[in-house]
């Protein structure tokens, strides 16, 4: 076994165990903390894929922003759901069966595909990859339009989140 395979296997075990705990622990705050561990493991996988930029983005956006948002939401809604009550609905057995079957089908399909055992064509990623990525995001012949659409999406989501989430004092009077 080579070193990167060992790192991959350890990270994969950590990510999968943390993901299982995210969907199964009764306390929501613990689920949010396990989600942070799973996201950090995914960042390690990005490093193994030689996509260092995305490892940094994963840490900043997912662990830094999304996980903090989720923890805030969990704390704001703490009393709504007693932590030792039932956390899974009546479909949970069926959901487990469906997801196991989905995993069996997906992995069977992947293992029967010839290209699945491929190794990277070039052993090293070109050092200018990040420069090319940045230039293609600002190039009208490249991905300028999707980039601008994504920024409009983020702006709209921000405005929408503020509008939905604020206290509606004016609307209370008609109740």
């Amino acid at each position, binding site marked *: 076994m*080579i070193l990167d395979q060992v790192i991959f296997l350890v990270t*994969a075990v950590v*990510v999968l165990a943390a993901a299982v705990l*995210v*969907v199964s622990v009764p306390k*929501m705050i613990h689920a*949010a903390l396990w*989600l942070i561990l*799973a996201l950090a493991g995914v960042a390690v*996988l*990005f490093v193994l*894929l030689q996509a260092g930029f*995305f490892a940094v983005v*994963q840490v900043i*956006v*997912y662990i830094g922003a*999304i996980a903090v948002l*989720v923890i*805030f939401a969990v704390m*704001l*809604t703490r009393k*709504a*759901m007693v932590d030792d009550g039932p*956390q*899974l*609905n009546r*479909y949970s057995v*069926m*959901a487990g069966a*469906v*997801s*196991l079957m*989905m*995993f069996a089908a*997906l*992995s069977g399909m*992947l293992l029967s595909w010839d*290209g*699945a*055992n*491929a*190794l*990277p*064509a*070039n*052993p090293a*990623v070109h050092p200018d*990859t990040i420069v090319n*990525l940045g230039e293609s*995001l600002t190039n009208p012949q*490249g*991905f300028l339009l999707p980039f601008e659409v*994504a920024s409009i999406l*983020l702006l709209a*989501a*921000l405005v*929408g*989140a*503020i509008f*939905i989430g604020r206290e509606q004092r004016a609307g209370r009077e008609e109740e």
Partner: protein
Amino acid sequence: MIPLSWYLILSAALVCIGVFGVISRRNAIAMLLGVELILNAVNINLLAFWRYKDVSSVTGQVFTIMVITAAAAEVAVGLAIFIAVYRNRRSIVAEDVAELKG
């Protein structure tokens, strides 16, 4: 070197765990955590295919950026909706909010 199939199997497992969480958790925020797991599995897949099949182009990386953007927008709007629902009816259980059910 790590074969491509290892990444694909890992992200398949991650997607299935996320789907289980989305279907079976009662807490609406826990369902959002399942969606996060699914989107992370998508990112692993996109970057693995970029690294193993198409390392000279940037398309796979641009797609990953779009997925991360959509995930951030989804979490912001989703959590705002759940907090508004909680403020109005003191409940965070997804099946309690069934006005739109036919």
